[in-house]
């Protein structure tokens, strides 16, 4: 039974429920758990696989890899994406690389070290068992991708090259110029297309999942809208996998694709799937700064730039308007090198981002001054940018060597800003990039709804409160290629005995009708504000109060504002056109409606977690010198939230985090 949680901060906004725990990871030493689980999982014999249908939503690294692998295994796979081709999924935009514990560099790397770095980087808020398994399968991922023909960077000897990445001191990152995500995704896409040709996978592009079908307590299908014809259809299956990515677009401006959305996850949440740690957001330090109000998205530049670029701001406020090349060395503040001498510019993302914000808050930011409104409603002009300078690297390595490593990133910067980064330092500023939070899953990646599996960024499992660079690709592919195909069988082994569910099942009818009703409602409001204007307003609220620094006061303001925004949305939004047509406004409207509800939950989660950890920085919880301060005594758990109704108090289920293989420490990169 849920009881009011008087002792927790923000207790007026939620109720406390029973604890939740992962029941699937076997006991025993951590390095044996995965092989034991693989042995313990029930199997489906190849002849029976043909009789089982699995729905996979999403075609990114996790979804594409899972669809291809389950297709190869012989299941009937139905694969859905909202884009016009599976190859468009936003995994494609990842630039930097993919980690793997190959130790090709002979620099003390190992499965354990990758595991250790990931847990530490996640600020001790990730589940140990899942992370260890991720480190274990990492080497297989590289083998698999190379076999598919992924053109990783190579050395002259013909073997694979590695580079270092933020937050670690070994070189374990495999890369393909600045387009690693693209190459990995194309590898998965090709494997997927091969299965489509073989007939094991049926692909449905331009289909958006709008509801999950839960029948008799199990996930048994989805409702989609055909984005070309508007047809709303139901699809039934024995299990459903969501690999629908992250929800960074709740901030309106983020590095996510314009279409990236939370709808699939949120609909599942509303049907009973717990949403874990929604407030854990990663703000990436090396993005191109905002140019103005009409900006639709932000562009990230790989943080590999921090390997050779040096980050600085003018030491004196009066220098901020000067041409950076005219500011002498002694008047530059290389603040990351100053504050964190051992990691310097390679500190984890959350730290690099927050320090950039601090510098700009101090008034030492650079670039155009942009109007901002502070908590009290006062307008002020703030420069939101810091320099990322390659002049020293160009001197040391030569322009050609720098161009070989970062050429495409420099070109991209030049194209977007109109400035030449070989001559003037780039300006960068943090932007929302990735969300560590997502649907709660157990060791098998199964959510709190039986038969609903969640893979990739859409789940919460591996990165704790902060993700290390080059680990997202690893997780997506790890989940899709190696984890799901070895765990979902444990559930499917019994699926032939489940009761039949057909189109007339009350749960199916209810799901279909509810989607139609919602679409009709959106089209009938015919108010005076555009969908985008609501989305922008939500983004402002989230960025201001639930962005890089959060306070109890601010979060409470945000929750009120979001409640008002939701009410206004459902009474004043204007959606043009009809359902039975290609209607991008309608698509967007549904997504924004879900973002608004999610935004509120994120604020509640951020409000209750009165500690600073990873990407979640609570101003009330910091050390004397402004570093994040965790409270392991109170918050050593993952917060899994249960939906109870729109505007109703969600129920908090804590999953205690148990560290057996790793000693808890306060993170230090000094």
């Amino acid at each position, binding site marked *: 039974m849920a009881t009011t949680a008087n002792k927790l901060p923000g207790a007026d906004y939620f109720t406390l429920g029973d604890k939740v725990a992962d029941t699937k990871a076997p006991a025993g030493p951590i390095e044996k758990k995965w092989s034991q689980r693989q042995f313990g999982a029930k199997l489906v014999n190849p002849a029976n696989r043909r009789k089982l249908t699995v729905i996979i939503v999403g075609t990114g690294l996790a979804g594409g890899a899972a669809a291809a692998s389950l297709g*190869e295994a012989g299941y009937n796979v139905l694969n859905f994406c909202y*884009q*016009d*081709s*599976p*190859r*468009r999924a*936003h995994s*494609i*935009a990842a630039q930097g690389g993919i980690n793997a514990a190959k130790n*090709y560099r002979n620099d003390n790397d190992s499965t354990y070290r990758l595991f250790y770095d990931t847990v530490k980087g996640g600020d001790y808020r990730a589940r140990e068992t899942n992370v260890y398994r991720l480190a274990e399968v990492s080497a*297989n991922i*590289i*083998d*698999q*991708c*190379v*076999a*598919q*023909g992924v*053109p*990783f960077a*190579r050395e002259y000897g*013909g073997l*694979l090259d590695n580079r270092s990445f933020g937050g670690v001191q070994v070189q374990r990152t495999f890369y*393909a110029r600045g*387009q690693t995500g*693209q*190459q990995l995704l*194309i590898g998965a896409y090709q*494997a997927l*297309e*091969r299965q*489509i*040709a073989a007939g094991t996978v049926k*692909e449905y592009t331009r289909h958006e999942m709008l509801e999950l079908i839960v029948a008799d307590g199990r996930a048994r299908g989805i409702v989609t809208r055909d984005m070309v014809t508007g047809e709303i259809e139901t699809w039934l299956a024995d299990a459903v996998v969501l690999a629908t990515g992250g929800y960074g677009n709740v901030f309106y401006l983020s590095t996510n*694709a*314009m279409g990236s959305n939370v709808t699939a996850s949120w609909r599942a949440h509303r049907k009973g799937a717990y949403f874990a740690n929604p407030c854990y957001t990663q703000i990436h330090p090396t993005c191109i700064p905002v*140019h*103005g109000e*009409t900006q*639709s998205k932000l*562009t990230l530049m790989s943080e590999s730039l921090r390997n050779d670029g040096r980050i600085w701001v003018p030491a004196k406020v009066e220098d901020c308007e000067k041409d950076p090349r005219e500011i002498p060395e002694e008047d530059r503040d290389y603040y990351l090198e100053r504050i964190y001498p051992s990691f310097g510019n390679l500190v984890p993302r959350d730290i690099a981002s927050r320090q950039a914000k601090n510098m700009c808050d101090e008034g030492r930011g650079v670039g155009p001054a942009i109007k901002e409104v502070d908590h009290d409603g006062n307008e002020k002009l703030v420069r939101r940018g810091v320099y990322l300078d390659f002049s020293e690297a160009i001197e040391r390595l030569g322009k050609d060597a720098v161009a070989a490593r970062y050429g495409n990133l420099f*070109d*991209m910067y030049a*194209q977007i800003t*109109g400035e030449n980064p070989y001559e003037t330092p780039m300006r960068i500023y943090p932007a929302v990039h990735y969300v560590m939070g997502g649907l709660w899953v157990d060791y098998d990646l199964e959510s709190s709804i039986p038969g609903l599996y969640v893979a990739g960024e859409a789940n919460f499992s591996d990165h704790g409160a902060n993700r290390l660079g080059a680990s997202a690709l690893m997780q997506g592919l790890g989940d899709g*290629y*190696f984890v799901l*195909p070895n765990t979902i069988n444990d559930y499917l082994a019994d699926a032939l005995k489940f009761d039949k569910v057909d189109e007339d099942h009350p749960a199916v009818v209810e799901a279909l009708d509810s989607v139609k009703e919602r679409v009709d409602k959106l089209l009938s409001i015919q108010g*005076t504000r*555009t*969908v*985008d*204007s609501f989305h922008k307003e939500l983004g402002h609220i989230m960025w201001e109060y639930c962005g890089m620094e959060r306070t109890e006061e601010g979060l409470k303001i945000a929750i009120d504002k979001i409640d008002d925004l939701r009410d206004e949305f459902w009474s004043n939004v*204007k959606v*043009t*056109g009809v359902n039975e047509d*290609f209607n991008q*406004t309608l698509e967007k409207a549904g997504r924004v409606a879900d973002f608004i509800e999610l935004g509120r939950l994120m604020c509640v989660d951020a409000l209750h977690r009165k500690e600073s950890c990873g990407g979640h920085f609570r101003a009330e919880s910091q050390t004397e010198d402004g570093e994040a301060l965790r409270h392991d005594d109170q918050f050593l758990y993952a917060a899994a939230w249960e939906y109870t109704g729109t505007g109703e108090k969600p129920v908090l289920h804590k999953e205690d985090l148990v560290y057996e293989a790793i000693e808890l420490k306060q993170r230090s990169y000094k």
Partner: protein
Amino acid sequence: MNITLRVWRQANAQSEGRMVTYQVQDVSEDMSFLEMLDLLNEDLTLKGEEPVAFDHDCREGICGMCGVVINGTAHGRGNSPVATTTCQLHMRSFSDGAVIDVEPWRAGAFPVIKDLVVDRSAFDRIIQAGGYVSVNTGAAPEAHANAVSKLKADRAFDAATCIGCGACVAACPNHSGMLFTAAKITHLAMLPQGQPERPLRVKRMVGEHDALGFGGCTNIGECAAVCPKEIPLDTISQLNRDLIASLFKRDGK
């Protein structure tokens, strides 16, 4: 800046389309071309008119979803100093008061869905015909089992950067999909992993390409000129070499 747009409006695949003129005010030069279209759409929505449908997603030039013909060139390449996707074309490439024509990709293999949106699923079909290495998950040898010369790895990479946007087809006077097909052929032909299926792959992919209603290649070069990823034209020669060689191989039919 103020811009006059002439945009192709077409309700659906069956209906006739036409150019419609719109004025867009207060365009900043830092805006991307698609942000300018967003601005137009916000305005149209408030007026109760249907916004212009266009495909877009990542808006950082890598997903390949966006793509329109701007002033007669795919992705507005003619207005950009560098290779670009539509989303990475910025308004600083245009002058105040400019009149800009915007049309969808036009090719038989890419039917129009609505306004500027076309159906490019034919590209997926070409990949399905053989644009992969047949390796099941879990069956891969150790990554260092095969060394690849840097030269070949780089050439494979140059071809593998294709984003499947379809600009090559849109720009080609024959509406051929040869550059797209050749990019995949070249990517896999340069790597040891691609060798076992090499003769079969090229036969199947070219066969599927032709069956899908793309035109034939006459080596004009418009495709490479508009390609946002600068896929070199010589990939087409690589495809032709492989195709000729495959005629003398017994692999496949």
